């Protein structure tokens, strides 16, 4: 036995190691199944699954890819926050600094942007797959509704992130979009059956003003980096939990 093996055995038997990794390498199917029930990482997948359901074409991994993109967006976005100040004075210049001054800033910004576009695509594709496979049927109908909330949250994250560069494109895009909100029935100032006046409608609630201005940038920023990601993470947790706890739809297509 070499020195290295000795150290490895000591490490594997130490309290520190065993408090983190509760299981040894599984020696039987029974042990394997117990571990996949009690391990945090492994419990994402069921301990037993039909062979047919393991086909890639069963899901195309679209939900998993969406979650992976969400993780990339959370990490790259968190790093971008170190150099971005959400004020009219600084926002555009901080975005330019990220592109031309900060090390790997351009890479992070592009990563964030393309992952965001990608997440919208994969979430829609995931939804279409679930629809065409009939995976929304009981007992999974609630998870379909949770998925619809996640779709809306994905769009909202995309939309609120759009304003943050504070350039001409984002300014006028959000101006156009919030004007469309004004045409909403009842709660939009210009919509049919309106009950609210301009300055107190849904558009003003979003913008914190009548037009896109300093309060709008701050509101979109807080929504983009705090409220919407928090809500999305909570719904993702519920979505994952339900998919493991709801009974399977027995009949395969």
């Amino acid at each position, binding site marked *: 036995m070499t020195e290295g093996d000795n150290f490895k055995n000591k490490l594997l038997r130490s309290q520190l190691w065993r408090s983190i990794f509760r299981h040894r390498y599984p020696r039987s199917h029974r042990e394997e199944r117990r571990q996949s029930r009690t391990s945090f990482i492994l419990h994402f997948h069921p301990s037993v699954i039909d062979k047919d359901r393991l086909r890639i074409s069963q899901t195309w991994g679209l939900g998993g890819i969406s979650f992976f993109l969400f993780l990339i967006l959370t990490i790259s976005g968190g*790093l971008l926050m*170190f150099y971005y100040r959400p004020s009219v004075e600084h926002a555009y210049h901080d975005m330019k*600094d990220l592109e031309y*001054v*900060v*090390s*790997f*800033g351009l890479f*992070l910004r592009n990563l964030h942007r393309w992952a965001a576009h990608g997440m919208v695509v994969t979430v829609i594709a995931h939804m279409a797959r679930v629809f065409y496979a009939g995976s929304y049927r009981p007992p999974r109908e609630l998870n379909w509704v949770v998925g619809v909330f996640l779709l809306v949250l994905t769009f909202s994250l995309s939309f609120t992130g759009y304003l943050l560069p504070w350039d001409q494109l984002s300014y006028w895009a959000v101006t156009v979009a919030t004007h469309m909100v004004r045409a909403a029935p009842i709660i939009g100032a210009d919509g049919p059956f309106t009950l609210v006046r301009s300055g107190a409608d849904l558009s003003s609630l979003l913008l914190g003003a009548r037009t896109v201005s300093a309060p709008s940038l701050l509101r979109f920023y807080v929504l983009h980096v705090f409220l919407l990601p928090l809500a999305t993470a909570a719904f993702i947790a519920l979505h994952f939990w339900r998919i493991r706890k709801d009974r399977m739809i027995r009949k395969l297509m």
Partner: protein
Amino acid sequence: MKLRCSRRQMLQGMGAAGTAGLILGSGYVSLNFFSPKALYDPPNRFRIGKPEDFLNNKVTEIWKERQKVWLVHSSKGLYALVATCTHLGCTPNWFPEEEKFKCPCHGSVFNLEGDGVSGPAPEPLFRTSIVLTEKGDLIVGTGNLGIRLPDQSNREPRRSGEGFLIRV
């Protein structure tokens, strides 16, 4: 000597080296990302005007906000004091009636020379270099901080042509 190494040990070693490389590499990249590449501080050398402009006032405070510098005119001449307390770095205030600089944080008091009168400050206020150009302009350089110790009324300039006092 022949080195014996099993296939498993070889692969484990390569895996460990790759992981170490990944951790070191991403550590370097992270450090690089967090270290600021552009500082938006004011320039550390700036022109303040002609000596005659400052003979009416004892202390000129217009550079205190941004550059953290007072221009002082005393019986000895013109010099620039750094508006940073030598105790723990707060910004003292100038009280013209008492002719004292007082630090609001821990009560250090300095006289017009920048010498500590009372309070915990261990050293006098620092001085910046001040140069009179051939055209007659005063240039203050905050990058080259002169430290005037209590027993040295005026230190020798660090570089030729750079001093800490302009006699008027």
